[in-house]
């Protein structure tokens, strides 16, 4: 190693060592219970980094345990992160909303960008009353895991899996880079949308379920444990004006019918298999 290279290497070591020494982290866990009285309480969680796990618990409260891990490259940025990345909790008799960043503040991403290298992982463990309407999301380094809610569920992730089990109804379940598992405790009666770009989709429903589905599954196998029938669906036609031109968009999904049909599920994936399973 010549002299210049040696100096450069040592300088790199010093910088790396300084950066490692300057990193600041803090971790804390807290729990809280929120009484709710609504007939159909609502739970909203909008996370960025970390898991969201929801289970059914007591009838009159939403109980939350949150593990928070804050990290920043320096003490200065660590202090800044407290103003830019935080958990906003709003609770009343109707339900609980927990959003990383103030719910009404749409500038949370620019604020986070100002605090470069900062992040706050929130791991949510929540129990809700039976029948709660659940709407949960995260963005990265975490999964969505909801079971036994009893009420309608919406769940989304960007870089991670989504698993929603023991459902009675769903509305939108989606990921971008992650597998999506949706299983029903009973035959659904409402329309639902299930999507991912990169990942398998597994839909599990009880035997005897009546269901129509519009499939847009590009790559991967489509396998069903039900002896269902292909169904011709009308194409969806959207027309609008955009930058001075008229745009018409036509989409043709593949239809399938389970049993005698029922609510319509929209199922979309790009890279992944679709499995339709019968509850055991």
């Amino acid at each position, binding site marked *: 190693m010549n002299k210049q290279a040696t100096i450069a290497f040592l300088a790199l070591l010093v910088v790396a060592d300084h950066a490692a020494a300057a990193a600041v982290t803090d971790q804390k866990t807290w729990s809280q219970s929120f009484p709710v009285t609504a007939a159909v309480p609502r739970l*909203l969680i*909008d*996370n*960025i980094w970390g898991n969201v796990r929801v289970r059914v618990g007591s009838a009159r409260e939403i109980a939350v345990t949150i593990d928070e891990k804050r990290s920043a490259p320096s003490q200065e940025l660590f202090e800044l992160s407290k103003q830019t990345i935080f958990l906003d909790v*709003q609770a009343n008799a*109707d339900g609980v*909303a927990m*959003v*990383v*960043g103030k*719910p*009404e503040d*749409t500038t949370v*991403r620019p604020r986070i960008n100002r605090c470069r290298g900062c992040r706050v992982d929130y791991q949510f463990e929540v129990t809700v009353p039976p029948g709660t309407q659940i709407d949960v*999301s995260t*963005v990265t380094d975490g999964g969505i895991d909801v079971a036994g809610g009893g009420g309608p569920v919406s769940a*989304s*992730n*960007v870089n991670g899996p989504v698993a929603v089990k023991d459902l009675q109804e769903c509305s939108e379940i*989606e*990921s*971008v880079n992650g597998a999506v598992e949706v299983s029903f405790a009973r035959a659904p009666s409402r329309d639902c949308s299930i*999507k*991912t*770009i990169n990942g398998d989709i597994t839909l599990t429903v009880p035997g005897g379920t009546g269901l129509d589905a519009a*499939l*847009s*599954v*590009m*790559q*991967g*196998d*489509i396998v*069903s444990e*039900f*002896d*269902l*029938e*292909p*169904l*011709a*669906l*009308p194409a969806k*036609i959207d027309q609008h004006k955009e930058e*001075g*031109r*008229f*745009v*018409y*968009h*036509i*989409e*043709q999904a*593949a*239809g*399938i019918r389970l049993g005698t049909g029922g609510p319509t599920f929209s199922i*979309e*994936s*790009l*890279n992944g298999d679709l499995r339709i399973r019968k509850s055991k």
Partner: protein
Amino acid sequence: MSTARTFIPRVAIALTAVLGAAVAFGQARNATAATPAQPQAETITIPLSRPGDPLAMHIDIISAHIEVIGEERKDVALSVTLSSGRRKIITPSGPKLLAGGGSGLEINERDNYVSIESDTPPTNRITIVARVPRRASLDLSTINEGEIIVRDIVGDLQLENVNGPITASNITGSVIAESVNNLIAVGLAGVAAGGATSLSSLNGDITLTLPASAKAELHLDTSRGEIVSDFELDVKPSKPRIERSESRGGVSVRMEDVIVATVNGGGPVVRVKTLNGTIKIAKGGG
């Protein structure tokens, strides 16, 4: 409890619009499948920005049957069928063919220019029947499992079909038609004076139909096929054209043996070329 959801991954929704950029592979093979439920044709009428003025249309789809018919009209009427090709679902009673599935089409209109494109997987087949104003220039292209058919157009055509046939009839204007592995049949109502008509295929027969009174100078080239004509051709003396180029330290020589023949005394040049096929010059009415 209305709450703005800043980080909801709407990206997922946006990206689904481009899902069709992929190819559907990995389907069950060597299995029989039931007859699929057939997708229905959808009809769309596209109003033009300048009704009554000539239309320009561009269609570029990997697997498509494209049919364009000129009519006395001031809009574009489209009949579109999107099918899933060989996409199957595996069920306990065996694989079943699906109808549709991931097929999408986007149509744009601006200033009488209509473009139709699709990012649908090549295994999905799209059928388009477009009824357009007669005065139109068309640029139509497909690759697989399709056919290009054009009729009753006054305007210039550019037609490309790699593995399927091209048929154009009652055309007044110049036609550039290219296929690799299939036939080309073009019927001209008149030979365009200023345009360049050129029909070429690698492995297909080419039929050019001209009005009985048409005046043209034909440049005919078939390496391994016959030339058949309903017209009395006045064959001009010609000699092989040899192009020599020196590049990258080597020398390449390209030889073309084109028969030049005039019809009814000669006129605009029409080039017809195939490697493995017959060239037929047919006489139409007029």
